């Protein structure tokens, strides 16, 4: 398997290339890393979406999309994500590799150039009529926030984390708030863009069959025109233990109750102990053979889903389930019983072996999905040590039962959140 090749475009701008002759798609992604802060989350978040909808060369939405369609439906997407207390703005281009075109066109050169137009010559630098575009994207992002409320599973999990981390930057939504989105001015967008290109850590990823030389030279040329400052420091606060236990119940017109438990684990990236917490969380509730699945669902028939997930960038575990309102107490007791078993070392050798195999398979299969592979490396690029999937598998393989039990004993319950039907 070809390995990822890293190089530098300029101060604070890295370039990663992975040659993949087996793929029919090529992908170039730009990730901009910024500290997640309440005061500028919204005005940063809107940036990638504005960039991906037009550029000075193709200022009109329809003609811009026709250009993308001419390039065999090249996908150009803005995105924003939250990793720990870091906000990542990304612009991603995906296009068909040239070996598969119908008429011998050279897509990758044009796609790269278009991506540069979008990034470095956005429409908002010169257009006076940019207000309409800004309104459109504000509207889109506000509706995105509202649609999260529509999804009760996601909403209840977000609420729990928000209550749990109320006084930490982690509680800031990756898109900020509706009010902050509404107040964004064209000048805010320009400032956010200038700051992103000059002072943020940037990672550019390229996965595909073509050689990267052209992409690298074009990017070097573009960045040479920008005065780069030392990139802004990035960090995430890790609260090691829950000091006060919070309990919040909310009501909605729904049919099924949601129970979400938030725990502090003490460990987070880049510390290596976080892999123990990861494996512990998988044994507890990460698979169809986990303790929570086998007991809460299969043995007691209380739910359709009951699972745990570990955010290793923030060091928290979230356990969630959808149940009948009258079964909240029983479900909660059973979840705690399973956690107690983990803490007291009631973990069969097989459970550990199975969980290790399951994580190993999940990490190795990252290679087979271009977007997961790209994100896997992009996410890690804010840390000094970057692991390959193979290295993570071997880390997980080496974990002992004692380390799992210690990780279980380090968790403390911070927040219990329930969303219950009105009636």
């Amino acid at each position, binding site marked *: 398997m070809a390995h990822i090749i890293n190089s530098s475009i300029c101060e604070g701008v890295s370039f990663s290339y992975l040659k993949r002759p087996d793929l029919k798609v090529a992908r170039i992604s730009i990730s901009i890393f910024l500290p997640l802060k309440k005061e500028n989350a919204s005005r940063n978040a809107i940036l990638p979406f504005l960039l991906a909808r037009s550029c000075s060369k193709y200022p009109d939405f329809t003609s811009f999309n026709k250009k993308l369609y001419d390039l065999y439906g090249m996908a150009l997407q803005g995105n924003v994500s939250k990793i720990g207390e870091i906000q990542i703005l990304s612009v991603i281009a995906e296009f068909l590799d040239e070996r598969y075109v119908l008429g011998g066109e050279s897509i990758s050169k044009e796609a790269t150039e278009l991506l540069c137009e979008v990034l470095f010559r956005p429409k908002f630098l010169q257009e006076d009529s940019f207000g309409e575009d800004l309104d459109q994207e504000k509207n889109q992002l506000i509706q995105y926030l509202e649609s999260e409320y529509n999804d009760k599973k996601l909403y209840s999990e977000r609420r729990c984390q928000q209550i749990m981390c109320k006084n930490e930057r982690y509680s800031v939504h990756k898109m900020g708030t509706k009010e902050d989105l509404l107040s964004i001015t064209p000048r805010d967008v320009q400032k956010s863009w200038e700051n992103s290109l000059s002072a943020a850590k940037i990672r550019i990823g390229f996965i595909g069959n073509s050689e990267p030389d052209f992409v690298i030279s074009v990017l070097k040329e573009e960045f040479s025109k920008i005065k780069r400052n030392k990139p802004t420091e990035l960090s995430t606060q890790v609260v090691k233990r829950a000091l006060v236990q919070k309990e919040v119940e909310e009501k909605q017109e729904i049919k099924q109750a949601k129970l979400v438990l938030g725990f502090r684990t003490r460990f987070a990236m880049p510390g290596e102990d976080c892999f123990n917490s990861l494996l512990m969380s998988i044994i507890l509730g990460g698979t169809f053979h986990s303790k929570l699945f086998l007991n809460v669902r299969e043995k007691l028939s209380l739910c359709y889903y009951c699972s745990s997930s570990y955010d290793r960038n923030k060091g928290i575990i979230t356990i969630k389930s959808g149940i009948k309102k009258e079964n909240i107490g029983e479900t909660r007791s059973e979840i705690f019983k399973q956690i107690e078993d983990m803490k007291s070392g009631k973990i069969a050798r097989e459970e550990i072996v199975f969980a290790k195999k399951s994580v190993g398979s999940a990490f190795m299969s990252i*290679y087979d999905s271009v977007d997961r592979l790209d994100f896997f490396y992009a996410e890690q690029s804010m840390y000094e040590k970057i692991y390959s999937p193979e290295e993570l598998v071997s880390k997980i393989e080496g974990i002992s039962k004692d380390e799992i039990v210690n990780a279980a004993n380090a968790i403390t319950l911070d927040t219990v959140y329930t969303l219950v039907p009105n009636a």
Partner: protein
Amino acid sequence: MELKEVRNNRAKESYFCGTHESGLRVCIFEKKNSHSSFAVLGTKFGSINTKFRDKKTAEIVRVPDGIAHYLEHKLFENEDKDSFQEFAKTGASANAYTSFELTAYLFSCTKNFFESLDILLNFVQSPYFTEENVKKERGIIAQEIRMYDDDPNWRVENNMLAAMYHNHPVRVDIAGDVESISRITPQSLFLCYNNFYNLKNMSLCIAGKEDKNEILKMVNKKIKTSSPINPESFFPDEPPGVLNHRVEQKFDIKISNFKLGFKEKITNDELDVEKIVLTDFVLEIFASKTSSLYRELMDKKLINDSFGFNFVEGPHYAHIVFGGESNDPDLVAQIIKNAMVEFKKDNSIGLGDFERIKKVVYAQYVLVLDEVKDIANLMLSTSLFDREFFSCIDIAANVKIEDVRNRLMEIDPDNSCLSIVSPLKSR
């Protein structure tokens, strides 16, 4: 059994397919550079197959709604073991799904492929339904149904189908409801199993790094021979018009979601692939981000990025759907319908648009071939319904503009149904 190679020169790929003497269809797509492999074993038995002729008694029987999905849940349990536990030993990630017209059992793995394939072939061929284990599942599935009841994106789709179709069972939720699943018994599960889990009615599709000859060896060893039968399902007569033009449900949500469906003319024959490809062309030209319709809806702030469209078809049903989030779904529907009338009137598909869309539709079909999961699942649905997996690629490359124009004329803008889920309080 012998495998024959099917090659596509545009995608520069091949796969191998053949039929085992039991009737089981086998498709293998070798992807030597892949880290993972994906296997799926499926049967042509979905939520719509609730009325059929029992091969044993020759009588026509009606089984409870949601039974295909219930059977899917229960098949993982064998007499002495749970199949998820078995997969745990190999490290594979296993799952299953039930759609309107098929049920599929699958796993993906990066190691121990043949051990996992052994488990898959074993458990799907070893039903074990008892009063006790069938009863135990009821609480789990009831919570699954409740979860979907609270999901507006799911409801908006099912409400549309229930409003669009008078009689066809596609109007019923795949999982059934709490009442219908209470009538499911071990006997009714066996009745379905014995009729539809016949190998003649099934396909095994594999994509990944494994060698085809090794796979064949295992299939030959593990497949139980049985006398092939062709299950006979019955579908009620379906009037051509929609049942209701509009349906709305209130939810505790902040933004409305809609599905606007156009019911298509239903024939008893299965659709050919060409019609599906042509529909993709029409929809892309009519409603993609390059269209004047999209521009109008966007400029009026009526839609957001969630806006999309697709063509849905299966045994005795077919419809086109537009959907997404909107603060005024009624106005969106009106604009789409008017635009469709105008679009048909001029039949204004230009050569430039056509050539552009051709590249896009073609690329979409080729790009599916990057991920083993997508390949195996698509091979399953095509092989079960006697379609050729690669055919859409060449059809897209060779489509004629006249055929797209003719396909457009078949769409009836008046035969539509709008389903809305909207916030409880008006904002």
